[in-house]
């Protein structure tokens, strides 16, 4: 089980963040010309005056109890700040994932099964464009076109379902492009296997072969990529939420870094990393269930 050592490593990295800061993190957090007593007090509050191993154990112990410390900016518990912001990010990531799978897999299947070099070329060029587009630029263009000019969607900061559309599309595009490429190459590989030739030889329609013979095997690989993409989407939310001024974890992280609020930064990073690791573990297990070849080895 690789989960435990990785989570241990993640917690060490997150814990060390504050200690790796060049200079005195307490002084940086307090900003200009803090008084000596303030520094001592904050250092004590953050537990930075204890030996490192003790600090680490205390940090992990508290984290396991859901205590991620207190935000310096708001003086509220970090876990409460994260709890407030989590739903917006979760919604966005989930919507983008659904959109990316829908779009990416369809484009990939179409490209692999088209048997037309022109169509395949166009679709794959689109996929290259998709991974090259900066999400913050796409976001701005979508806001300009669909919110400012056409007025179909709210401009900024909305958490309504309507306000979810443009951010989700923005976030989904690069992931869809990656999924399209993986789907295509995986399906192309399957379509060159002997059992596909057999199916063709017995006169089955091409669409039927793709649908019921090739897809099932071709999409197995896509599943693992979905897990990796999920991490990309969570991290991408940092930027997309800033474009659309969505009150989520990503924009909270940016604000926390800008004001050097270390407990908050640590909390957000820990939450992101743990979710990512756990999702990939779950997908690994699913992968084994779906693909009997893995189960044997």
């Amino acid at each position, binding site marked *: 089980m690789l989960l435990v*050592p990785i989570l241990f490593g993640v917690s060490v990295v997150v814990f060390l963040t504050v200690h790796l*800061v060049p200079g005195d993190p307490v002084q940086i957090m307090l900003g200009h010309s803090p008084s000596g007593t303030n520094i001592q007090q904050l250092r004590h509050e953050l537990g930075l005056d204890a030996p490192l191993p003790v600090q680490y154990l205390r940090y992990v112990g508290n984290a396991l109890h859901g205590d991620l410390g207190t935000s310096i900016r708001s003086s509220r518990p970090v876990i409460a700040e994260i709890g407030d912001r989590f739903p917006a990010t979760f919604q966005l990531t989930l919507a983008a994932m659904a959109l990316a799978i829908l779009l990416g897999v369809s484009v990939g299947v179409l490209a692999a099964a088209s048997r037309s070099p022109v169509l395949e070329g166009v679709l794959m*060029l689109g996929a290259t464009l998709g991974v*090259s587009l*900066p999400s913050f*630029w796409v976001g701005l263009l979508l806001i300009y076109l669909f919110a400012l000019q056409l007025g179909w969607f709210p401009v900024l900061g909305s958490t309504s379902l309507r306000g979810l559309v443009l951010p989700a599309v923005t976030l989904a595009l690069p992931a869809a492009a990656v999924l399209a490429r993986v789907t295509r190459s995986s399906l192309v590989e399957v379509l060159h296997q002997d059992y596909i030739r057999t199916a063709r030889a017995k006169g089955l329609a091409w669409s039927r072969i793709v649908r019921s013979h090739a897809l099932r095997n071709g999409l197995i690989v896509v599943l693992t990529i979905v897990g990796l993409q999920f991490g990309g989407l969570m991290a991408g939310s940092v930027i997309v939420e800033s474009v659309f001024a969505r009150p989520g974890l990503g924009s909270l992280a*940016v604000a926390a870094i800008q004001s050097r609020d270390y407990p908050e*930064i640590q909390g957000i990073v820990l939450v992101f990393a743990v979710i990512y690791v756990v999702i990939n573990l779950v997908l690994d297990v699913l992968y084994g269930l779906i693909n009997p070849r893995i189960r044997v080895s």
Partner: protein
Amino acid sequence: MKGESTRMLEQIDAAQSLATEAPRRARVQVLRRLLARPLALVGAIIVAFVVLLALIGPMVTPRSPDDIIYTAVLSPPSAAFPFGTDDAGRDILSRVIAGARISLTVGVVSIGIAMVCGTLLGLIAGYLGGWVDQLIMRLMDIMLAFPDILLAIVIIAILGPGLVNVMIAVGIGAIPVYTRTVRAAVLDVREQEYVEAARALGAPAWRIMWVHILRNVLAPIIVLATLGVGLAILIAAGLSFVGLGAQPPTPEWGDMLNEAQNYLQQAWWMAVFPGAAITLTVVGLNLLGDGLRDILDPMSSHK
């Protein structure tokens, strides 16, 4: 005894330099095959164009990127200002051209950091094996547990915002890819006969890694680096966009888009051109990288 083995080492070197004749011909081949792929060729032309702009940019910009023209604040694209001007009355064309040097530098420096550190770690892990290998690879696993730009964000949180710190952060974040690739390649060639021969002749470990192994992993590294520079430019611009990278008034494409955000309604041109520059550069690098991969690694492409 020692003199003899040195002489044999020299002979092996001589044989290898003979063998590099073939790679030189292969290099010409790579170039020719690259030119035969229309998309890769387009990519190469775009990249060459951006590199040229980065090199001679200051000589061809119509104005200084920091020149403020008070009479022409937020003016739309025209003959005088082909890309328009921004909220401070600066010529956007000049700023976009100046941005080429910044973005390419960021991309190349950060991937340089990743390539050097990642390759070294991969060589060490693959060649030495044992607990060193375990230690390095577990470290990479932990780094990969921070998805995508999250690791870069952690590092910026430590170092503080700024363009130089973004280069370091993006570079460190990209290390695991190179380590894994190089390690896998090392494991592959470590047991080859010519490596064994060099070892039997008493060649030191660093020499075997440098001369005999590294040469064999160069192709995948070049492909990864080409694609990596594009990704690094994208990430760095994104970090600048949210205010963690380049700070105003640097003519950095991501930061220019950050400023454009506030004037989207009045001045679409402030957002369109810097973003198009990022997209064009990254598309070029991706097309070139894909082409190189298809040529250098025939297994990955058309089956």
